[in-house]
């Protein structure tokens, strides 16, 4: 149903070409809008409850900056751009490489988050029910991690079908939308990192 480039037969009716935005583009943009609002609510809760925990452990006692994990996640935004670029130029081999690297970087981020949570729970005895810090920390970081997970699942599906021989370059548009979603997830991490590890500590 591509309305994209219709020109009316009757030149009196249309002065110019009838060009409308692509529906997939509109769809993904507004999906990102609604997801941003959802994340904002958890960020706001985090900010409101800073310093309000009745008991410890407190952020400065137990939080360490997840530098490496953040670098990996944010670099994965870069690798995904390279992957897109390769796909646009039909370089499927390069595309697979950069795409796989993106997935690996994202997976590492998830693993690192899990490791951090393991330490917080078993060594520092901070759980979601311990205090307000625990509640807001696990929910906000967890919400983000769940979105990383969903992103990774879709990224993996793309990689798998490509490896199985599917001509992924025919789905360039949709791959692009997926990469926008991934950029969104990374942008949210910038905000979460700032709020949790910088402001909140």
């Amino acid at each position, binding site marked *: 149903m591509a309305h994209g480039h219709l020109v009316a037969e009757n030149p009196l009716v249309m002065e110019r070409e009838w060009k409308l*935005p692509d529906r997939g583009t509109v769809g993904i943009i507004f999906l990102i809008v609604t997801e941003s609002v959802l994340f904002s609510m958890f960020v706001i809760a985090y900010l409101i409850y800073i310093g309000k925990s009745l008991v410890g452990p407190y952020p400065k006692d137990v939080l360490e900056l997840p530098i490496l994990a953040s670098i990996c996640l944010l670099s994965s935004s870069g690798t995904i751009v390279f992957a897109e670029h390769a796909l646009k130029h039909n370089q499927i081999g390069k595309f697979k490489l950069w795409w796989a690297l993106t997935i690996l970087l994202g997976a590492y981020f998830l693993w690192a988050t899990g490791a951090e949570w393991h330490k917080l729970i078993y060594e520092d005895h901070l759980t979601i029910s311990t205090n307000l810090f625990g509640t807001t920390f696990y929910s906000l970081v967890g919400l983000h991690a769940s979105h990383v997970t969903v992103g990774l699942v879709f990224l993996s599906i793309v990689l798998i079908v490509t490896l199985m021989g599917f001509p992924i370059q025919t789905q360039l548009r949709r791959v692009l939308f997926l990469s926008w979603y991934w950029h969104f997830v990374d942008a949210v991490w910038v905000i979460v990192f700032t709020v949790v590890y910088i402001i909140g500590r």
Partner: protein
Amino acid sequence: MATIDYPLQHPKAEPGEFSFSESLYRWVATVDHKRLGLMYIVAALIFFVVAGIMATVMRLQLMFPNGHVVAPDTFNRLFTMHGTSMVFLVGMPMVAGFANYLVPLMIGARDMAFPRLNAFGFWIFLLGGLLLYYSYLGGGGLSGDGSAPDVGWFAYAPLTESGFSRGHSSDYWALGVLVSGFGSIASAINVIATTFSLRCPGMTLSRMPMFVWVMLIDSWLILVALPPLSAAQIMLELDRFLGANFFNTQNGGSAVLWQHYFWIFGHPEVYILIFPAFAILSEVIPIFSRKPLFGRPAMVGAVVAIGFISLGVWAHHMFAVGMTSWSNTFFAASSMLVGIPTGIKIFNWTATMYGGKLRFSTAMMFCIAFLFQFLVAGLTGIMLAVAPFDWQLHDSYFVVAHFHFTLIGGLVFGLFAGMYYWFPKASGRLLSEKLGKWHFWLLCIGFNMTFIPLHFAGMLGMPRRIYTYAPGRGWELWNLIATIGVFFQIAGVLCFTWNVLRSALRGTPAGDDPWDAWTLEWSTTSPPPEYNFEKLPVVRSSRPLWDLKHPQDPDWEWE
């Protein structure tokens, strides 16, 4: 009207070609926006009747002081389920139903932008609703407490925390509504993408029917207002299941935070709910006044203004919570400001009628009643926006009267107008005008009889959500009259049901354009074929059929 060849992708089906099970399958597996739209509306009407029965039982309990029609717990569940159902399982699917049915037809498209997402939206809405109602069966907890939720439709914390709401009733509330909300978001994204990307050639945004504009802004509001509710419900479930402390006041959490999040959703929600009525009125009133909508640019501007200002008024639901005088004043001010674009719409609809040739079809009569009733509702709203007035009347029957005036007197009347107007298009048959008039008058008399007195009960100190009251407080007379009004309303809705059933089976054939209307949906058959338009329309104004019917005086000469 010029058209463009637009080849069909699938062969046309002949009627009568399918067996019963094939037909059933085609309904269940459909991605056709028209079928899904009708399914949304039918589901909403069924929940409307169920929630209406709940209201009837409540009014019977409150008819006399010291009522014992139902036990206190039952009453508390009734008002919770009544409110939750009406907002989430009647109002929201009506938005989705009307939008999904009409938007593609009005913009000259063959379907929505994402037909499968559309189907997903419907079924997940239905799942959420069934999940909520399953609470009657499955809500029992450890000690047998439970059953349907009894925390009020806005489920204030910490009443909903596990300490005070044992069993799983509150979980059914949170999860049922959360799941249903995904459907609303899906529908909203779909409407926005459709509106931006699938308009037929020549239909610039400024030439879009007002109905489509209103649904576009409605979808924007859904996308922005629903996530705060979803977030709050996720937080509540984390509290209840994992011991989180978002609203756990014993461990530093804030009860007021729930209220902020809920009303950041809740206030835009009421605009989300009323917008279909605004949309319908903007289409129906011009046709039955034989004049174009007065002040289209201002109407668009007003809807856009509401779409933004309404995001900043939420704490007028919280005037009694103890906010500072600065906060209270700010929210009082913003709440009054949002009344201005809303009021302007009433003026514009009236001006559309002024100087016209009014035809009092059933649809038009519902619109006219809307104008009076929504005017009253808007004014009581402005009164409540004055915080000191609200300090007396917040959480009283005055507020109950106010919002029923907006929702029944406004929304329900508007929706009925839309149903009488578009039923012929969707079914190919006219509804009976005679039965329609009976429906209208019974509903109008009953509704006013029920809700006008409740203003007075509120002003005499009657709070909300009480399952009974003592005599001698001055409330008896008003409650008695209010309950009597319910029977008229029931009679009205029965007329409507009978009208629909009878007309669907043996109503007068409607033809393509029974009302002599001006927008694109009337240019195709009644009911439209699955593909809507054989040829892609090309438009030059906001009233393409007017241009066609009046070639010597087309709208595009005046643009």
